[in-house]
């Protein structure tokens, strides 16, 4: 009952303000979740416009639309915006909406901090995008902001560094909130091993975030002092070492990859059992595999740096470790497949996205194992093969899971069913155009086309044209998603509390849409 008491204090005056002030001051996990999701969608479109400009430039060989400096700024900002602005906040948005409802808690543990961690994001985004207008433009050295380039660039780089600091602080606060909520606010009877998979994956992701986000903050702080205060962490001339930045950066960067995919695993692990009408196969294995992936992700970072100069012992160590991380990942894919085995499956849009996720993420995983092999990696380093690889895991992995999760929970959030026909159209268009865009990039990479270059040799022309057409198709398909979501918010068939026949987790016991304050009295867990 302590939880109820605590909650009543937090919302002593319950006549919450309306209009803009409602959103600015909201400490309600549902409001904040909504804001996170809209923020990430806006950033997704922003980063998407950058991607389309890149693809438009690459439609034909030669320089047509943007100059090379601006092209480099676009590739850099596209990466930063999509990672820190779109994918990560989207998952935090899902966590805000779903974690309290799935564990039977009335709200997040620290409601005010929750408000703060969201409202840090828009200023950070403005700072990041504002760097385009700084003298010298936005950073142009790639999203990994390697020195010496990042030490030499103009003011835009400082703005980006501050933006990363703010977004890092926001992520850390969000993670602390999620960990505390999951550890302390579960309804009585909800033991750790009864938690839904999505909650488990977020618990582990949040731990990873507090583990590595501060390291990134340290790395960019060193960059900042190198740039402005005469320190020499990464300055070869002053006794520093630019390669050291790569080590510190990827010590953050590789776990970051899993931060962006583990919640996706969680969402897919909710969708598949619902539409296969069977419990998740090997729940405990899934929990253990997630933990295993998280631990292993911290010891494979240098596979991003095989060509940076490393003793062969180091190369072999990181190669073996990287290849072994495929084992727990494979266990997960096996479990999803086994969940579907002999299930009574139906193929609503969330299920389509989940199956698309499994299919394409596995493909991306396999090209990852290919890249893990040192001699091949030396060949494909910084080519479009790598681009294809990580878009297969981040777009058809993380992003498809986000779409799947959005369709899955939209009826719960809005109280209306979305338009199933349009949802299916959105899936099939995304699926087709995604593969059109990125599958051919494997061939481009193997043929030697380097990334982050605005121009290319004539023999790459055909595949680039195909890829650009695919990119525009994919980008435009996302407007359909926007339309479906808006239509669903404005009305549609009433969604029942359970919505999906096979849905078993706690949020489906609440009415759709759930009341503003849910589970003020903790539910009873069987």
């Amino acid at each position, binding site marked *: 009952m302590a939880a109820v008491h605590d909650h009543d204090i937090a919302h002593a005056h319950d006549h919450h303000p309306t209009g803009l002030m409602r959103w600015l001051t909201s400490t309600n996990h549902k409001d904040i979740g909504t804001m996170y999701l809209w923020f990430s969608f806006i950033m997704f479109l922003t980063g998407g416009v950058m991607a389309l400009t890149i693809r438009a430039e690459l439609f034909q060989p030669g320089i047509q639309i943007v100059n090379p400096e601006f092209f480099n700024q676009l590739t850099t900002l596209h990466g930063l915006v999509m990672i820190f602005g779109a994918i990560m906040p989207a998952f935090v948005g899902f966590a805000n909406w779903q974690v309290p409802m799935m564990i039977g808690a009335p709200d997040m543990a620290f409601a005010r901090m929750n408000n703060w961690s969201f409202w840090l994001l828009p200023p950070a985004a403005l700072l990041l995008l504002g760097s385009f207008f700084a003298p010298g433009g936005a950073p142009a050295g790639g999203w990994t902001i390697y020195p010496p380039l990042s030490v030499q660039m103009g003011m835009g780089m400082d703005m980006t560094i501050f933006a990363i600091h703010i977004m890092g602080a926001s992520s850390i606060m969000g993670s602390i909130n999620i960990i505390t909520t999951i550890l302390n606010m579960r309804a009585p009877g909800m033991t750790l091993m009864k938690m839904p998979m999505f909650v488990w994956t977020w618990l582990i992701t949040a731990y990873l975030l507090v583990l590595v986000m501060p390291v990134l903050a340290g790395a960019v702080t060193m960059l900042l002092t190198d740039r402005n205060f005469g320190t020499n962490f990464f300055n070869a001339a002053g006794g520093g070492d630019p390669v050291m930045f790569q080590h510190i950066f990827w010590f953050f960067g590789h776990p970051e990859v899993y931060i962006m995919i583990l919640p996706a695993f969680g969402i897919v692990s909710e969708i598949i059992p619902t539409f296969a009408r069977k419990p998740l196969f090997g729940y405990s294995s899934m929990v*253990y595999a997630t933990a295993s992936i998280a*631990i292993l992700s911290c010891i494979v970072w240098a596979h991003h740096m095989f060509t940076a100069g490393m003793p062969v012992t180091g190369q072999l160590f990181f190669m073996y470790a990287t290849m072994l991380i495929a084992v727990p990942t494979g266990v997960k894919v096996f479990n999803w497949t086994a969940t579907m085995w002999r299930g009574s499956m139906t193929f609503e849009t969330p299920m389509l996205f989940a199956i698309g996720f499994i299919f394409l993420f596995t493909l991306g995983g396999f090209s990852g194992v290919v890249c893990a092999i040192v001699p091949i990696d030396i060949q494909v380093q910084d080519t479009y093969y790598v681009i294809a690889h990580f878009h297969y895991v981040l777009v058809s992995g993380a992003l498809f899971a986000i779409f799947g999760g959005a369709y899955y929970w939209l009826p719960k959030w809005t109280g209306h069913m979305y338009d199933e026909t349009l949802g299916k159209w959105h899936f099939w268009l995304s699926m087709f155009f995604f593969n059109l865009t990125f599958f051919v990039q494997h061939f481009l990479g193997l043929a030697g086309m380097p990334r982050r270059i605005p121009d290319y040799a004539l023999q790459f022309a055909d595949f680039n044209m195909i890829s650009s057409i695919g990119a525009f198709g994919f980008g435009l398909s996302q407007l359909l998603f926007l339309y479906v979501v808006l239509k669903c918010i404005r009305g549609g068939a009433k969604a029942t509390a359970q919505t999906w026949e096979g849905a078993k987790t706690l949020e489906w016991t609440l009415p759709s849409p759930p009341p503003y304050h849910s589970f003020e009295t903790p539910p009873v867990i069987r």
Partner: protein
Amino acid sequence: MKDDNKQPPKGTLLQIAKAVFWAFFGVRKQSDLDSDASSLTPAQVIIGGLIGAALFVMSLIIVVKIVT
């Protein structure tokens, strides 16, 4: 190392090692998991996990030393 007389929180060393090993592989039987969940404390699992990770790193280094 065995305190079988007191059942609740303490798991045996062997049990921790087994749980950590299977966790690294990513597969665990439901019955074993239930016994893990009832008899292992989080601290035991975390320390076991860190030792497991260290052992994993060392074994990889040994393999690398052998092949180079």
